[in-house]
């Protein structure tokens, strides 16, 4: 199983651990993730006005760079932007024409654009994953936190049922964890409001954590560095039992029995440093 891999800026910075754990687990699972050469920003936000073509330049360049091979990313935001940019290229001929002309590339919206969780579900299969788990997370009460970007708009993202998704729960089950469902698992964490309106994010985060706590969760998993930041940093100091937040890949690596110390992280870092682009 070979995929082109787009890391995105945060995975080389704050969310380095999501990348490190994923790459280690992928290798163990026989999934080859080949990092794109000289990649650049995913675009960060998908332009909701269709004349904001400038924001499409970097995601379309990225899509074209995959050369028709399946393109995998880990960060929910990157995946969201890439997937929607691809759909726009398929649907809006005018926009496609302008963007590809400008970039002087030939791209018509081809190729699969996948989140790593989709690779695990659709290509590897959670059954198969479960078989390859070495240290099941027995007795660990874990809840999924999906956030927005993977799920919506569902017609474009095609990730899972937008109201009742199961992919992360199925994933946790495959890891052997005790799955806990919380009603706020698909609600927004406040996103980049934490930059400008910290109070708003504090509210949303409190609701999410409260509802997870009430459901009995000890930990949450996420695929989005910003969600994780908000959940960890915007929570009010209320003295309640903290709910730990992990990247899904961190639990994956743990369940795969991968010793994840600094040494290994550095080894991966070294191996990849030659072809890492700028963020």
């Amino acid at each position, binding site marked *: 199983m070979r995929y082109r891999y787009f890391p995105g800026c945060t995975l080389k910075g704050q969310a380095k651990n999501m990348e490190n754990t994923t790459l280690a687990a992928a290798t163990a699972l026989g999934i080859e993730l080949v990092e794109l050469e000289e990649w650049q920003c995913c675009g960060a936000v998908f332009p909701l006005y269709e004349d904001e073509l400038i924001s499409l330049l970097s995601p379309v360049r990225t899509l074209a760079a995959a050369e028709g091979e399946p393109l995998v990313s880990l960060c929910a935001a990157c995946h969201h932007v890439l997937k929607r940019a691809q759909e726009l290229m398929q649907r809006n001929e005018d926009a496609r024409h302008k963007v590809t002309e400008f970039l002087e590339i030939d791209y018509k919206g081809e190729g699969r654009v996948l989140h790593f969780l989709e690779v695990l579900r659709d290509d590897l299969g959670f059954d198969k994953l479960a078989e390859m788990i070495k240290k099941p997370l027995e007795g660990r009460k874990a809840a999924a936190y999906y956030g927005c970007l993977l799920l919506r708009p569902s017609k474009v993202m095609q990730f899972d*049922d*937008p*109201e*009742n998704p199961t992919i992360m729960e199925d994933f946790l089950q495959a890891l052997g964890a005790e799955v806990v469902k919380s*009603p706020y698992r698909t609600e927004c964490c406040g996103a980049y409001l934490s930059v400008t309106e910290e109070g708003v994010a504090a509210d949303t985060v409190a609701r999410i954590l409260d*509802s997870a706590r*009430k459901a009995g969760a000890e930990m949450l998993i996420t695929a989005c560095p910003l969600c994780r930041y908000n959940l960890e940093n915007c929570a009010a100091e209320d003295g309640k039992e903290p709910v730990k937040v992990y990247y899904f890949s961190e639990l994956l690596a743990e369940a795969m029995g991968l010793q994840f110390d600094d040494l290994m992280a550095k080894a991966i870092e070294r191996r990849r440093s030659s072809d890492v682009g700028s963020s």
Partner: protein
Amino acid sequence: MARTGVFVCHCGTNIAGTVDIDQSVEASRGFPGVVHAGEYRYLCSEMGQDLIKNAIEEHNLDRVVVGTCSPRMHENTFRKAAAEAGLNPYMLEVANIREHCSWVHREMDEATPKAIALLRAAAAKVALNDPLDIPELDVEKRALIIGGGIAGIQAALDIAEAGYVVDIVEREPSIGGRMAQLEKTFPTLDCSACILTPKMVEAAQHPNVNLITYSEIDEVKGFVGQFDVKIRQKARSVDSVKCTGCGICWEKCPSKAPSEFEMGMAKRKAIYVPFPQAVPNVPVIDRDNCLYFKKGRCQICAKECPPEAIDFEQQDVVIERRYGAIIVATGFDQLDPSIYGEYGYGQHPDILTGLEFERLFNASGPTGGKVVRLSDGKPPRNVVFIQCIGSRDKARGMNYCSKICCMFTAKQAILLKEKVPDARSYVFYIDVRTAGKGYEEFQRRAAEEYDVAYLRGQVGKIFPEEDHLVVHGVDSLSGKIVEIKADMVVLAAASIARCDAPEVGRKVGINSDSYHFFNEAHPKLRPVETHTAGVFIAGACQAPKDIPDTVAQASAAAVKAIGLLSKEKLQGEACTAEVIQDECSGCLNCIAVCPYTAITEVEIEERHHGGTLKRTVAQVNPSLCQGCGSCTATCRSGSINLKGFTNEQILAEVDAICL
């Protein structure tokens, strides 16, 4: 050689104002076959018609052209006049020189040559006209009603009272339909069973009504007055004649299955009647759940049945019968709200649809008439009703308004308050629609006297928390977000067409709108007729509607059917297709394009080298043919022709118009 008379009408100045009548008459005299031409101020008047009749006699005319208003206006008037003068009515053609000429052109030198061209074309056509017969069709004095809900029952009783035999075909083991599932009816709060049951019994006992329950339509052939229908009576496994309806069998039956009538909220036995007042009160064995049919042993019902009515060997029976008229009254379904993940329907027992909630009020319902939560059996304190679940929703549901939900919600909120006095109802709505006699007053009573809180807005999400449901909604009028800790949530799920409506429509030969509701022939003026003559529609199979509208429509459909059945003979279409069998090569492409299955294949014999040879050709049933002519355009050799619009006639018109 034709002897054609041409008559040009002035229509006061309507025609004469822009068409030079004299010049038109003069030109007409020169058309081939024209032996007489005249004009009159108002040809459609008595005097004008007499002028035509006299000329027919005086000049021995065998065909007539009138240059007048549109044939859609007075063609029949002039045909009648011609017939009175002894001509076949179809030996007349109309040149439309008013709507298509004098009224759309302003200059005399423009309109006159065109009027002449139109007259010339009509004269060329009429020269090729043949006398046509209007076929007379027999009427089978029997009506078929598909669907035994309140619409079907009402229509059947009306037809039966008028003296005609009527059969009701019902798919379920009992008639009664959706109305039988209701506890009370708005806005009067009559007990539904109290007003429906007598009608069901009346239908069962009426000498002119036959109930054919647990049955479906297999096939409909034929045409108005003579529909040949195959009805499949499913094996009941119980002899209806012997059965007394004592109920011992279903008491003793050890096997259970979810009850369809109770929306799956309660169990029934494998041998069962759907509800206590069922008509006929004869059970059926659900073979999928019966131990005997599944595993070959048990037969307890047969052992216990006093009149020995159980018959495991019973087979499906196909009844073939002819009907003069058909009324389709197949009712509606309720949309499954589980498509809305945010409401959590199907994931929590206290989130119900309106119809499910209705059953909780019923004494024979799943809770014995106690309004309690299915999760813990406790009576609810806070009940949230949400309107427009799948109605008015073009994104995921139906774009239309389901019409009945505002009212049944008000009714259920009132009933709830009566059963559980300390309960409080909240209704999230987009608009409250209460058009109907006494409806607005009823809904206001709910709000004013029964303490029902109406919140204008929708609900974004429902989720369980501890022992209640959190309803996250908004009241748009105050601009406030509302969060209610509810004990139950009732979703007013959209009324939708029955899932098998397209199939029923196909069998009966009527069409549907994009939601699969059957189409009426005209939305205002022909509300219960369909485009297929002799087939009528009633009730919620046409669009969502309440009981009063359904019953009114059922009676209307019955009157239409009675009117049809009361005729001795029906007049058919004169302009029908006709196969020239000598030329027909039998490719039968015409059959594929005929919308009326009016064309069939027939084997004919013909001479071949002294012997006879059999071959297949097409044949038109003139009773079924409506005269569209699609077959004629598909026939490469012109071997099927349309009377009144023959290939020869149309080509003659083209030639004449182009001269």
